[in-house]
C-alpha cells in the first residue's frame, strides 16, 4: 500500500506533472503562433482591400453644378449661320464665359450672400474641363445655340474634394487653388440644390485628363487598352500554350532537347516581369519597329510572360486525364494523334480553361513590363476598333493607376484607388469564372 501511495504521489492521473504542463503549454503556444500567422494574413488582406475601397469609392461619385445655361448666339456663333466649321473657331474661352454668366445668375438667385467672395472664387468653382465639354456638346448639335439648356457642369477638383471630405475650410486657407469663401459658396449652392453629387459614369468612360483637371479624369482608354491586350494574349497564348503542352506532355521523347525545354519553361515562369519589359523594348520596339505604347506590343509581351503559366497548368490538366483513356483509344485503332485530339484534349478542356483564365488575370494586373514599352504616355484619343486599333497608342488599367500616383494633386489618389477597384472587380469576375468552371466541369478520376 505504501508503495502504491508513494507511486501515486509521483505520477498522478489527475494532477499533471510539471514536464507535461510545460509540453502542453508549448503545444498551446505553437498553435497560437499558427493562428496568429493566419490572422495577420487575413488582417493584411482586409486592410489592403479596405483602404483601397475607402479611398477609391469617392471616384465613383462626382459633384456637378446642375443649372440652366443660356447659350447666347452672339458669343458662340458670331456669324449666326450655325455652321459647325465656323463655330469651331470659337474657343473654349468663350464657353467658359457663358458658364460664368450662368453661374452668376444662379448665385444671384440665392437667398444668402457670401461676404468677401472674389471674382476668382466664382470662376474657379467651375472645372476647366467643363467649358471644353460644353463646346463639344454644342458643336455636335449646333441647334442648341440661342436656347437655354440644363447642363451638368463639372466643378473644380477642390470643391469636389470638399464634399468628399478631402478638403476642409482650414486647409483651404493655405491653398492657393481655393478659399474658404469659395467653399461657403459651394455650401450655399448645395443647399439650393444647384450643386449635386451623383454617380460618376464619366469616370468609367472618359479618357485621362491633364494634371490640373483630376475631376475629369477617367479610365475609358485604360479599360479599352487592357481589353485589347487581353484579346492579343488570348488569341496568341492559348493556341501556342496548348500546342506546346500537348507536345511536351504527350509526344515528346525523353531527350536532351525536351529536357532543356522543360527546364526553360519552369525558369521562364520565375523570370521577373520587368525583364520581359526589357525584351519587349529591345525586340518589338527597337528591332521590329512596332509603335510605342501600342496594345499589340503590350499584348505580345504579356503573351510571352503568361505562356509558361498556361503551359504549366495545361500540362497538369493533361496529366490528370488517366492513361486508360489513351489506351482505350489506341486499342480500338486510333492513332496517337487521334487519341490525343479526340479524347484527351476534350477531357482536359475544363482544366485548360481554368488555367487560361488565371493566366489572363495575372496578365491583366501586370504593370512593370508595360512601363518600359511606353504605355505610361498621356493618351487622350480613343484607339480605333481592332485590328487597326491594336497599333494605336492606348493606356492600361494598372499603368493608369501608376500614372495617377505620380501626379501632384491629391485628388488623383482617389482616382487611382477607383481605377484599382475597377481592376479588382475584373479580376474577381475572372477568378469566380475559373472557380465556377472548376466546380462545374472538373472530373475526379
Amino acid at each position, binding site marked *: 500500500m505504501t508503495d502504491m501511495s508513494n507511486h501515486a504521489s509521483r505520477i498522478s492521473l489527475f494532477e499533471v506533472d510539471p514536464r507535461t504542463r510545460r509540453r502542453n503549454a*508549448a*503545444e498551446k503556444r*505553437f*498553435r497560437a503562433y*499558427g*493562428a496568429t*500567422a*493566419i490572422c*495577420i*494574413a*487575413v488582417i*493584411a*488582406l482586409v*486592410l*489592403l482591400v479596405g483602404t*483601397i475601397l475607402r479611398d477609391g469609392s469617392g471616384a465613383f461619385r462626382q459633384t456637378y453644378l446642375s443649372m440652366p445655361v443660356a447659350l447666347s448666339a452672339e458669343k458662340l456663333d458670331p456669324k449666326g449661320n450655325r455652321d459647325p466649321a465656323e463655330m469651331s473657331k470659337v474657343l473654349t474661352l468663350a464657353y467658359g464665359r457663358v458658364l460664368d454668366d450662368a453661374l452668376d445668375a444662379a448665385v444671384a438667385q440665392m437667398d444668402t450672400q457670401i461676404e468677401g467672395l472674389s471674382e476668382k472664387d466664382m470662376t474657379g468653382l467651375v472645372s476647366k474641363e467643363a467649358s471644353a465639354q460644353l463646346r463639344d456638346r454644342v458643336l455636335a448639335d449646333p441647334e442648341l445655340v440661342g436656347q437655354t439648356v440644363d447642363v451638368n457642369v463639372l466643378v473644380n477638383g477642390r470643391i469636389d474634394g470638399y464634399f468628399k471630405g478631402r478638403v476642409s475650410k482650414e486647409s483651404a486657407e493655405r491653398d492657393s487653388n481655393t478659399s474658404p469663401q469659395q467653399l461657403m459658396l459651394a455650401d450655399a449652392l448645395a443647399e439650393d440644390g444647384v450643386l449635386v453629387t451623383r454617380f460618376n459614369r464619366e469616370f468609367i468612360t472618359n479618357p485621362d485628363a491633364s494634371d490640373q483637371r483630376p475631376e475629369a479624369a477617367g479610365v475609358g482608354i485604360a479599360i479599352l487598352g487592357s481589353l485589347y491586350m487581353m484579346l492579343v494574349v488570348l488569341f496568341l497564348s492559348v*493556341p501556342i*500554350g496548348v*500546342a*506546346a503542352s500537348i*507536345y*511536351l506532355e504527350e*509526344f*515528346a521523347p525523353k531527350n536532351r532537347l525536351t529536357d532543356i*525545354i522543360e527546364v*526553360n519553361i*519552369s*525558369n*521562364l515562369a*520565375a*523570370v*521577373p*516581369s520587368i*525583364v*520581359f519589359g*526589357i*525584351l519587349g*523594348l*529591345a*525586340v518589338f520596339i527597337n*528591332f*521590329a519597329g512596332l509603335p510605342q505604347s501600342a496594345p499589340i506590343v503590350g499584348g505580345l509581351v504579356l503573351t*510571352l510572360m503568361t*505562356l*509558361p503559366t498556361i*503551359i504549366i497548368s495545361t500540362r497538369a490538366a493533361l496529366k490528370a486525364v488517366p492513361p486508360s483513356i489513351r489506351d482505350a483509344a489506341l486499342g480500338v485503332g486510333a*492513332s496517337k494523334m487521334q487519341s490525343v485530339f479526340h479524347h484527351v484534349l476534350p477531357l482536359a478542356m475544363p482544366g485548360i480553361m481554368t488555367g487560361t483564365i488565371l493566366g489572363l488575370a495575372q496578365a491583366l*494586373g501586370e*504593370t*512593370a513590363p508595360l*512601363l*518600359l514599352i511606353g504605355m*505610361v504616355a498621356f493618351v487622350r484619343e480613343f484607339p480605333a476598333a481592332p485590328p487597326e486599333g491594336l497599333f494605336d497608342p492606348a493606356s492600361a488599367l*494598372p499603368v493608369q*493607376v*501608376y500614372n495617377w*500616383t505620380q501626379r501632384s494633386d491629391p485628388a488623383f489618389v482617389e482616382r487611382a484607388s477607383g481605377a*484599382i477597384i475597377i481592376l*479588382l472587380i475584373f*479580376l474577381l469576375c475572372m477568378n469566380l469564372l475559373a472557380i465556377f468552371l472548376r466546380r462545374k466541369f472538373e472530373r475526379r478520376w
Partner: protein
Amino acid sequence: MPLSWALIASLLLAVAGYLIGRNRALGAAGPDVRMLHSRPTYHGVSVALTTFGPAAVIVVLALLLRMTGQIDPTTGGVAGLAVLGGAILGLGWGISRIGADFQARSAVERMVMSVLIICSLIAIATTVGIVLSLIFETGSFFQKYSWHEFFFGLEWTPRFDGNSRLGMLPLLWGTLYISFIALVVAVPIGLFAAIYLSEYASPRIRSFAKPMVELLAGIPTIVYGLFALITVGPMLRDWIAQPLGLGNSASSVLTAGLVMGIMLIPFVSSLSDDIINAVPQSLRDAALGLGSTPSETVRQVVLPAALPGIVGAVLLAASRAIGETMIVVLGAGAAATMSLNPLEAMTTITVKIVSQLTGDNDFSSPETLVAFALGLTLFVITLCLNIVALIIVRKYREQYE
C-alpha cells in the same frame, strides 16, 4: 495592307483546297470508300495545310525581312504576290498527291506534329531573345562605361550631360536589404500559416482561411504598391520614423519590405503547404504513437523532413522579392544610398531600370544602356536562385516518391 489581304485570300484557298481534296479523294476511291487509305476528311485537311502552310511561312519571312529593313515596307505588293503564289503552288502540289493510296492521315499528323514542336520551341526562343537582347545592349554599354566601375562603383548619379557615375552597388544593397526585410516578414508568417492550415485547422477554418490567404496572391502588385504609398508609408513615418527621429520620408526600406512581405506570404505558405503535405503520414503517425505532442511532431519530425523543400521555397520567394518592381517603385523611393537605417528611402535595381527606360530614350547614351546591364544582372541573380531552388525541390520530391 496587301499582306493581310493575301493572307485572307490564301485562307480562302485553303478552304477551297479542303473541299477539292475531299471530293477528289472520294472520286479516287470509286464506289467503295474503304479503298482509301485515310478518311476523306484527312485528304481535305492535307490539301488545306499544304496550301496555307507555305503562305504562312512566307508571311512570317516577309515580316521578318521588313523588320530588319532588308525590304522596303512599301513593297508589300510583291510580298503579297509571293504569299499568294506560295499558296497556289501548295494547293497544286497538295491536290496532285491525292489518290486512293495516298497516306493522308500520316501526312496531316506529321504536319500537325511540326506545328506542335514549333510552338514548344517558342519558350526557348523567348529565353534566347531575352538573353540576346540583354547581352547585346549590355555589350554596347560596357564599350562606353568601364565594367568594373559599374560592378564595384559605390555611387549612382546619372546625369544627362554626361559624366555620370553608374555604380551598381547602392542599388544592389537596396535590393538585398528590402528583400531581406520582406523575407523576415513572409517566411515565419507563411510557414506558420502553412503549418496551421495543414496540421491544426479544422475543415471549416481551413475552407475559410485558405482561400483568404490565396486571395492575397491574386492581387496585382500595383495594388500593393499603392497600399505602400498611401497607407503604410505615411503610417510608418508618422508613428515610428518621426517620433524616433530616424527619418521623415514616407517611402523607405521598411515600407517596401513590409508590403512586399505581405505579398510573399501566400507564395511561401502555398509552397510550404505542398511540401509539408508531401511528408508521408507514416512519419507523423510514428511520432504521435511514441507520445509526442502535435507541435513536437511538427518541429522534430515534419519540419526536418521538409527542410530542403522549405529552403527551396524560401529561395524562390527571394528571387520573387529581388525581381519585384511596382512595390519598390511606389514604396522604396529613388535615392541611391547605402545605409543601415531601415526608415530611410533607398532604391533598387528594378526601380532604376524603370526610371532609366521610361520617357524619351537615347539608345546611344550610357544612362539609358545601363538599364540593360542592370537587367542582365537581375536576370542572372534570379536565374541562379531559381535553378538552385528547383534542384533542391526536385531532389526532395524524389526522396519520398
